[in-house]
């Protein structure tokens, strides 16, 4: 697919990185800053045009006439919308725009229909959705859903005294009488797709595939809480905080927001009448303690400064037993941050990029492959792909143990009609099933790619 990315910021870069790794895409980036464009050209196999995305000449240079998709992710909403509009008129491509200002949130549907956008992405909104999902299931670090919500991939850290410590993966279903499958393990900064003889250790971040019911049963068995939090404390009252509070309040979670600027506090007060808004410096310990940090069931650090968020979270961790979530804007130091033993870190820009990559995949699939959904798991080191099995699939009607799979691949789940099957060697894949495959390989397009 020919893809044009306008804006070489963090999101643009992440998308370019993801898509250029897949052979079938031809990517061209556009940015006004020549330095940024050159950095990207030297790093990835893509072409670059220096110029403004709203200039027709620049778009033509970038090949908008032959493009299948244009992604506008500059810092300005209006620029993004205008770029999409011009691209739509001058070429015949689908368009994706990043629109993040909360004041446009009501007009989003209008934009989408009247400007013919294929997708509008709001990084703050998607980050807030992600956080809200985690707060509803605080024991997990990350949750991805498949098969229209009937299957989840849940990531969590194995606690120190857990029964899972020193247990081989093959023994899990026997010893715990639980129908779950471990599809990935991260230890330090390495990720494994484990075999049955892999022995888990405490501190590992493991990802399991299960239906929501089986998942919560499994967590009960290993002694991890599964009920949603009752209240949350948010430091930093930006756009993400607003979206998050809005969605949490709707599900009955009590929200406290600590924000430094008085005018923003008043605005939040007006927008979120049910939230408790505290006007104070979140980095001041006494403010946090006074606001009841020690009894908070969850704590979300959403200030605009990464370092502050990390330190706040570490402090909160020392005072409270609740779920701690940390927002990180800069992606570069994720390995160091993982070492810090923070509960969950959220990278809004990663999430936004992932949404867009998912869309590109899905669109590509409608052309010539059959991936239903795609998620990045194991910290982006692996992909979980959901394939639909058609009569042409080479694995249709075959037993799993008879398949000659590539290394580092696991068939994590089979969804058949309304049933979820955790695949064992003797199970058979049938036409009409969807199967979830977890792999560290990149660029799979079809289920046959999993075979040697």
């Amino acid at each position: 697919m020919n893809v044009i990315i306008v804006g070489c910021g963090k999101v643009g870069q992440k998308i370019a990185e993801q898509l250029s790794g897949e052979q079938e895409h031809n990517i061209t980036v556009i940015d006004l800053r020549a330095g940024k464009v050159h950095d990207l050209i030297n790093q990835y196999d893509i072409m670059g045009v220096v110029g403004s995305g709203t200039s027709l000449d620049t778009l033509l240079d970038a090949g908008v006439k032959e493009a299948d998709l244009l992604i506008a992710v500059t810092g300005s909403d209006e620029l993004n919308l205008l770029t999409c509009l011009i691209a739509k008129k001058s070429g015949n491509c689908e368009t994706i725009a990043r629109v993040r200002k909360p004041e446009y949130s009501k007009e989003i549907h209008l934009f989408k229909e009247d400007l013919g956008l294929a997708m509008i992405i709001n990084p703050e909104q998607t980050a807030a959705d992600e956080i809200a999902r985690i707060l509803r299931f605080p024991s997990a670090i990350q949750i991805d859903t498949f098969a229209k919500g009937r299957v989840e991939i849940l990531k969590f850290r194995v606690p120190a005294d857990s029964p899972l410590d020193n247990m081989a993966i093959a023994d899990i279903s026997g010893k715990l009488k639980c129908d779950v499958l471990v599809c990935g393990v991260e230890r330090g900064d390495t990720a494994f797709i484990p075999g049955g003889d892999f022995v888990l250790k405490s501190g590992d971040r493991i990802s399991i595939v299960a239906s929501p019911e089986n998942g919560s049963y499994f967590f009960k068995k290993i002694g991890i809480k599964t009920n949603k939090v009752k209240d949350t404390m948010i430091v930093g009252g930006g756009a993400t905080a607003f979206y998050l509070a809005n969605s949490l309040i709707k599900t009955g979670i009590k929200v406290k927001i600590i924000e430094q600027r008085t005018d923003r506090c008043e605005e939040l007060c007006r927008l979120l009448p049910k939230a408790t808004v505290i006007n104070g410096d979140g980095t001041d310990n006494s403010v946090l303690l006074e606001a009841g940090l020690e009894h908070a069931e969850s704590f979300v650090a959403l200030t605009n400064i990464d370092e502050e968020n990390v330190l706040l979270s570490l402090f909160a961790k020392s005072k409270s037993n609740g779920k701690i979530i940390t927002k990180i804007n800069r992606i570069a130091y994720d390995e160091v941050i993982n070492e810090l033993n923070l509960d969950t870190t959220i990278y809004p820009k990663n999430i936004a990029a992932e949404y867009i990559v998912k869309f590109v995949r899905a669109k590509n699939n409608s052309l010539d492959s059959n991936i239903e959904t795609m998620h990045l798991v194991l910290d982006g080191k692996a992909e979980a792909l959901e394939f639909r099995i058609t009569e042409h699939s080479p694995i249709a009607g075959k037993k799993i143990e008879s398949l000659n799979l590539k290394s580092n691949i696991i068939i994590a789940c089979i969804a058949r009609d309304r049933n979820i099957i955790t695949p064992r060697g003797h199970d058979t894949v049938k036409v009409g099933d969807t199967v979830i495959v977890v792999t560290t390989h990149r660029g799979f397009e079809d289920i046959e790619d999993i075979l040697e």
Partner: protein
Amino acid sequence: MNYKIIRYIVGWVLNFEAACLLLPLLCAAVYGEKELIAFALCSLICAVCGAVLTIKKPKNKAMYSKEGYVIVALSWFVISLFGCIPFMLSGAIPRFINALFETVSGFTTTGASILNDVESLPRSVLFWRSFTHWIGGMGVLVFLVAILPLSGGSNLYLIKAESPGPSVNKLVPKVRSTAKILYGFYIMLTVLEVVFLLAGGMSIFDSLTTSFGTAGTGGLGIKNDSIASFTPYSQWVVAAFMMLFGIDFSVYYLLIVKHITGVLRSEEFKVYIGIVLTAIVLLCVNCHSYFSNFGDLLRHTAFQTTSLISTTGYGTVDFDKWPEFSKTILLMLMFSGACAGSTGGGIKVSRLVILFKSIVKEIKIAAMPKSTHKITMNGKTVEHETVRAINVFMMAYLFIAVSSLLLISIDGHGFTTNFTAVIASLNNIGPGFADVGPTKNFAFYSTFSKIVLIFDMLAGRLEIFPMLVLFSPYTWRK
């Protein structure tokens, strides 16, 4: 420094050379020449060395600018060293330094020779000599990038270091596809020339070798008098193709995928054509008394013009005997060289255009210090980085030219000879004036001077910086 990736890619360069040597081998087989053994042996040596170097794939494929420059410079040394083996083994050029000079002259598409009597050489050796032009013209690493599954965008560093021009851009988003497109046009144009020459009644061997020399803008002929004994029709064909190979290949791409307006926007292309036409007119006026009819006059002046501006170096007449004004024009053409992104050498028209524009800009600023000016090219602003790189390139170019001149003057030959020898080597042209004129050769220089000229040829082909990076201690510091 990632030594493993350097080793790996240099290994592939040798594998590539082993494959290339099969063509002269085939030629020797067709003509039943005993040189077959020399080519077979050399191909085998390359293949074995290449296999040893490439047997283990490096795990870390990270390649940065530094590795790119080193790989390119090193590859050109290696390919030249191995490429001279057939000349020595076959006994055509027994002395190592002469064989190396001839090979480097071939790969760098210079076309300067140390041979007195070319026609006495076996055909397979002549074939290899011309074929080195074709290999060197578009570049070895560009070819490898097109065929090797080296993933990632870092391949661009290789193309950037090998391809001529102030700023190397991709034609399409993927490096590999870009390299394939370039070679596609290269092969297409070469085949076209062969067809045209065959149509003029030339033998298949002559048309192939001549086309190789034209395509790479090399200039090593298969006759002692270069192209002079060919029919006027063939000379016109060669002249036309020399001009075509001196044009930026992206112009052809634009012509095919977009439309003529894109081509007309290319200032370099317009200036190049302008220079060629002006030079022909001036030469015609100045030399009209040397030829009996207008047809000959036009043909010879057009041929010398395209030959020198494209830095090919074929000749149809001894232009050393032309009047001083004409000779000076030809000397200027040698300096300008062809377009960036072509197979030609020299300073490149686009650099000269940008330099000229910076002079105009400086004048304007001197006249009105607060006025703001931007240098534009093809309707786009030229980045400051590019202008700076061109300025530095010119200084480095001058510095190398002057020091080479100093070093080879130790031999005691005349100034014109030495000066044009350096210019002809550094700009990858071939013939100069006086003792290195179109009917003479470089055999009389001492071994030391030949080494200097070999360096000049390589530096000229790779546009100086890869060679300087390779020899700079800064590169190798940990």
